[in-house]
């Protein structure tokens, strides 16, 4: 079962969510609700760690875009990291990289967003 786990809630640090398994119509609404709740609660730097994500559907892609849009409207920073090559290819094919910053690793993302 895919999971989305908010790992850190230290206001000075970016929030990280691990997205594991599949991000599709079954799991995307859960992730969307969780991240929107974080943004509504004041999170302004958010990283989705997709290192263990192996499948993403259209619903999953739309969710990531919706979350990036929500963070942009809130004036914060949103990034994803650790994309598997086939998922990075889908990101690139949809032109998402023009709107969402993609980092190779979690540490790269955290370092960039901590600045």
């Amino acid at each position: 079962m895919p999971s989305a786990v908010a790992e850190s809630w230290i206001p000075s640090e970016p929030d990280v969510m691990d997205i594991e398994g599949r991000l599709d119509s079954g799991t995307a609404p859960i992730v969307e609700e969780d991240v929107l709740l974080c943004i509504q609660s004041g999170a302004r730097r958010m990283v989705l760690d997709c290192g263990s994500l192996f499948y993403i559907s259209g619903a999953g892609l739309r969710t990531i875009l919706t979350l990036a849009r929500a963070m942009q409207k809130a004036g914060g920073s949103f990034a994803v990291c650790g994309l598997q090559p086939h998922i990075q290819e889908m990101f690139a094919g949809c032109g998402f990289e023009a709107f969402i910053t993609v980092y190779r690793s979690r540490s790269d993302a955290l370092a960039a967003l901590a600045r």
Partner: protein
Amino acid sequence: MTAPHPSLTILEEFLLLALDDSAGQFYPLARSTFDCASAGAVLMDLTLQKRIDNDLKHVFVIDATPTGNPVLDPVLQMMAIGPVLAPKPITHWLHHLADEGEGLRERALRQLEAQGILRREDKKILWVFGARRYPVLDQKEQREAKLRVLGVILRDDIPAIHDIMLVALAHACGLFCHILSDHELANAATRIEQVAQMDLIGQAVAKAITEIEAAIAMASGFR
């Protein structure tokens, strides 16, 4: 946090965008192009209603519960009949639904009529040829759809999903050359391309239309 959801479906808004209000008729689009875009709009609507999902290869019915929309439900029912273990590619459904493109538009136009947004006007030209017009009664919805789409292509922020889909359809069937001036179109071309590629179904619609146009061009060349 998300933007207010437009009350009209993608197909209804697409039809309003494709309607030249000054003439009460649709902008001149090839029938095959219009049919394919209408089919794509219905698939997009079903994804937004969380009834289907898709990846690069296939479309999956994830919930066959009727939406209550008379345009979408017969399509959903038809898609749900197929074997669950043999999901079909997006292009299969695009071509299949495009065959019913006129029927889909007809039902969506009736919905717009029922909502008091436009009316149907049948006339005879030279007492023989039928001509149908759709004068817009309530311009609010049409204006709102156009303004939203224009807003998306003139700004550089992340667009709402609904608007991405509309831009993808409008771009795939060449509507922007009717909606925008040449100067505006030239200035917005890069952004339109960028937004239009953001939806997988929109990409499939554009590809299908390009292939249909190429096939027609090739067939015409061999005559």
